[in-house]
């Protein structure tokens, strides 16, 4: 990687006189600029998706992993006693930082999305919920279930694993999808720049013949084309990156109601991540053009 970067930097420094040997215009120039800009624009979104889903996966796997819910179902006259018993058990359980029974208002708020705000919770035979917060070490769920089974027969422990795991898996897959998208975008850009470079080399057969006639080495000819295409790709990618970041900026801000979709974007120092895309595009163009040029020059006798 460092060697490739060094070669790219050497190619970019270039030689002012040598720069002029490749004709400056042509449809390949526009194609390279356009494809680098579009691909980098898309890569900004793929990067944002990847980072947002990464944050989501981290949140789901860390915050939710620290809380559990105990559901106590019992006849109304036994509910209070069983709740107290459950809290006693929890207070003496290693790994539990705190435990508290949800108030009537809190339970009403939880049911409100389904039954409306005026549901008479106190008259309904609904279970009592107890929120458990773990400490750093966590508790032994199997052991706690056995103790609760003995002392609070109506209690069911839900440590969120059942529904948290698929969500974390989904978020992790989305993050992977974002990274794979960046890889595919890079590959597609390499393919397009290779085609553009091949077209340019084919259109400039006379230039190559003249350069060889006057004693130019193939490495010199390759460098001239590589520099031209690398700079074009860098410029196009810079434009695409700026447009992509602007598009992310005008997305709606993250909101609880919108959930994951409104959180698509960068946070904090992650805004610096898009800056890596133009140099990456330059490296892709450098590699693609060099490969195409070497192959083409080897074909010409």
């Amino acid at each position, binding site marked *: 990687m460092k060697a490739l970067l060094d070669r790219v930097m050497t190619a970019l420094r270039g030689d002012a*006189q*040598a720069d*002029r*040997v490749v*004709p*400056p215009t042509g449809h390949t120039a526009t194609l390279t600029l356009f494809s680098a800009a579009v691909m980098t624009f898309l890569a900004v979104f793929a990067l944002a998706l990847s980072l947002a889903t990464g944050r989501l996966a981290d949140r789901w796997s860390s915050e939710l992993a620290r809380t559990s819910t105990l559901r106590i179902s019992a006849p109304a006259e036994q509910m209070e006693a069983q709740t107290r018993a459950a809290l006693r058990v929890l207070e003496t359980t290693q790994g539990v930082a705190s435990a508290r029974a949800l108030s009537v208002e809190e339970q009403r708020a939880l049911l409100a999305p389904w039954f409306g705000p005026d549901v008479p919770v106190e008259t309904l035979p609904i279970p009592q919920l107890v929120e458990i917060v773990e400490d750093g070490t966590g508790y032994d769920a199997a052991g706690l279930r056995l103790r609760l089974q003995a002392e609070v027969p109506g209690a069911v422990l839900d440590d969120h694993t059942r529904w948290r795991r698929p969500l974390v898996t989904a978020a992790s897959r989305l993050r992977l999808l974002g990274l794979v998208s960046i890889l595919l975008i890079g590959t597609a850009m390499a393919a397009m720049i290779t085609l553009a470079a091949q077209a340019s080399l084919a259109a400039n057969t*006379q*230039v190559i*013949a*003249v*350069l*060889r*006639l*006057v*004693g*130019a*080495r*193939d*490495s*010199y000819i390759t460098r001239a084309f590589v520099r031209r295409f690398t700079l074009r790709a860098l410029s196009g990618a810079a434009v695409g990156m700026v447009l992509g970041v602007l598009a992310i900026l005008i997305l709606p801000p993250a909101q609880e109601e919108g959930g994951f979709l409104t959180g698509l974007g960068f946070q904090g120092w992650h805004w610096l991540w898009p800056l890596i895309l133009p140099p990456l595009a330059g490296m892709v163009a450098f590699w693609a053009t060099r490969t195409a040029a070497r192959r083409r020059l080897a074909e010409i*006798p």
Partner: protein
Amino acid sequence: MIELENVAYNYGGGDLLSDVTLKLAPGSFHFLTGPSGAGKTTFLKLCYGALVPTAGQASLFGQDVRGMDRDAVALARRRIGVVHQDCTFLDHLPIAENVALPLVVSGRDALKEQANLKDLLAWVGLSSRAQARPPELSGGERQRAALARAIIMSPDVILADEPTGNVDWEMSQRLLTLLVELNRMGKTVLVATHDLSLIRAAKTHVQARVLRIAQRRVQLAGADL
């Protein structure tokens, strides 16, 4: 300098040249004549490493062409100035930059050699056309520009393929004079031409060997030339 020994070149199943032996000694002047399609251009290409013989041995400055990689051929070409009949240039660059191209590709600073470049353009009569693009030049001007480009590196050998093919008599005499002057400066010159009158005119100014390609072989021409 440039030596061909029993060289043959076969293309598409047929021999274009066979059993060619020639040594271009330093400071010599050669004409190569023969009808169109006789193999003059193929012969010249063998002389500057653009083609590799299918039999025999071709040496450029003591190196067998077969053993030379592309870099070695490129370095050898810096010592050989080539002028083609259909002189090709980089059309997007002015003539001055085209003439300076051999300096640029060999890593020399063309800016530092501006004085030489000016003198050279003046010598070939193109001072006033230095900033013109190649497509704007006449046939004769293009030939002179190609000659200037061929000699800017002060090569040991100058190979010219029908250098007067696209110009009138007066211009061909002027180009011939330039080639003779170069030979007097010690350069080895080989001119391929089908124009016998040019050869006759040259022989009054320079002692030249005249070679003729006939039936795929190169032989010394008779006294009629």
